[in-house]
């Protein structure tokens, strides 16, 4: 695909006249400012989480910590059960959801990409129609709670997101471009469709599969919506939902007496909030640093359809 060239945009090295330097300088300056604006909030949160509580109440949130302290992290790690549990829930949901979702979506997309499949057109309509029309929130809520009885069940965090129609669309497009002669050759050699799927279609589509896997992981990691609708049990709080409850003041940062004693009356609350936020961004930011290629490719194919 031409996406790489699209992204970097090397138009033919045409000569630029005098004054072009000023123009290029302005362009880069503006883009640097925009880029910084995109990253500044992370810095603000990080700085707040490494400040002393007193500095925050005195100076407010600042871009660099006025007085450096790791109290907020010590405080969180002194009673880590809650955040560990939330990490646990999110991780299990993310891993299970990504593996199952990828399998289900790839199989569905493969069948929809085969010309010889007689039900290809009606099934494609069946799948893509859901992009255009849905019953709305209330029927969905009532169905999940009253018919499926999935309230406060970890499955509700996984199942509804297993099939993302956009991702099926991406995968189907990728499978459609497999050379049919190759598949026919495999068929002549006696390969079943299953074997073709696992040994030809999957290996030949790894870039798209990697992208879809990454975006499925992200959508599970970042999800709070299903929890907001269906989860009351605190043991099933995901990291995002825990964070949401802390922000809403629904979840207090209680301290056991021993821990309160350790922090001598100066319980970090303003800073702890921000440290918690950092626990949620951390893994995504970390992954972003190393898997940037896939993130950017995913976004590019996604928006160019």
């Amino acid at each position, binding site marked *: 695909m031409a996406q790489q060239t699209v992204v970097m945009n090397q138009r033919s090295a045409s000569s630029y006249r005098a004054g072009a330097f000023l123009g290029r300088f302005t362009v880069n300056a503006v883009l640097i400012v925009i880029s910084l604006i995109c990253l500044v909030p992370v810095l603000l949160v990080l700085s707040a989480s490494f400040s002393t509580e007193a500095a925050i109440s005195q100076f407010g949130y600042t871009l660099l910590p006025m007085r450096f302290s790791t109290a907020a992290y010590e405080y969180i790690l002194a009673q880590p059960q809650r955040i560990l549990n939330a990490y646990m829930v999110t991780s299990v949901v993310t891993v299970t959801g990504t593996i199952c979702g990828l399998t289900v979506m790839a199989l569905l997309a493969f*069948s929809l990409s085969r010309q010889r499949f007689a039900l290809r057109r009606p099934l494609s309509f069946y799948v893509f129609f859901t992009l255009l029309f849905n019953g709305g929130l209330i029927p969905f809520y009532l169905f999940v709670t009253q018919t499926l009885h999935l309230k406060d069940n970890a499955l509700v965090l996984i199942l509804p997101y297993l099939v993302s129609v956009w991702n099926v669309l991406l995968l189907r497009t990728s499978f459609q471009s497999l050379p049919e002669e190759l598949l026919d050759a495999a068929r002549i050699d006696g390969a079943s469709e299953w074997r073709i799927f696992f040994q030809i279609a999957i290996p030949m589509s790894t870039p798209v599969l990697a992208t879809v896997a990454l975006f499925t992981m992200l959508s599970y990691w970042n999800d709070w919506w299903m929890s907001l609708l269906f989860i009351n049990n605190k043991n099933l709080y995901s990291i995002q*939902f825990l964070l949401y409850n802390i922000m809403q003041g629904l979840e207090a940062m209680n301290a056991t007496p021993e821990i309160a004693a350790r922090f001598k009356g100066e319980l970090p609350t303003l800073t702890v909030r921000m440290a918690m936020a950092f626990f949620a961004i951390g893994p995504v930011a970390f992954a972003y640093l190393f898997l940037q290629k896939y993130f950017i490719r995913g976004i590019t194919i996604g928006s160019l359809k």
Partner: protein
Amino acid sequence: MATSSGSVVRSAIPARSVPRQSFWLRLKLFLSKNGTYMLMALPGVALIFIFAYAPMPGIVIAFKDLKFNLGVWGSPWVGLNNFGYLVATPLTGRVLFNTLFMNALFIVTGTAGAIGVALLMNEVHGHFRSRVYQSAMFFPNFISVVVVSYFVFAFLSTDAGLVNNILKSSAMEPVQWYSSPEYWPVILVTVNLWKGVGVGSIIYLATIVSINPEFYEAARIDGANKLDQIRFITLPLLVPVITILTLLAIGRIFYADFGLFFIVTRDTPALYPTTDVIDTFVFRALRQLGDIGMAAAAGLAQSVIGFILVIISNMVVRKVDPEKSLF
């Protein structure tokens, strides 16, 4: 094998006609050709059925007075009463206005911002630099809206927020952001831009890059400077893409970004005058055990109007450029 289906094989006309196979035989043939694919599609098809199609009949509660003890099907029918309440509620006008107004703002600012960034990115000629800019500008897209609400809080919290610090240090009155609804359209537009401008620019950048460089060369020979070139070549050539994306966005104008309006505002009642949209209204009706029938009516109206709009916008898009339409 030939069974009850009553197919009559006319032996009188022998060789030429293929004997009509029995239903079961044809089914067997069909399955032998398509069975594997059907099995492959099955899990996905089943999940879509459960979570997208099966709830749909529940739409009828828009025409019912829902009693939880009687269930969806046992509750009494009330005809169009729920829609009547919906029209009569003064909130409806506000919610409808906010949804359309904010989405319109998002469309206009989002398009302008994305085109602006694309034009700038087009002038960057170093691979490394453009990679760095894009990495930074895509990053917000991967952050959950819950974390975004923390960012916004760090900026706008009344006592400790960065914005109020700056206001105070320049001897201005701090603002109670979370109880001043009048500022929120601007705040939400900013957040929306921050989150989406990098990603939104891609499609425009792709279009700009594909413009024939000879156009620009000819313009340069005629003495056009960079801004002239943008104005008379780039922008006019972007018009089809802008049209299509705007049409598609208008098709979804009745759907609000729930996370933005619910999580980022921290669901603060004081902000409802400018931030309450259809989706948050429906959610509250469901959550605070308000009028579920009315909420379902609002949801149904949203789905139906949304559906019609999407269909219309797609028809128009297909007229403009058949390749870009969704279906």
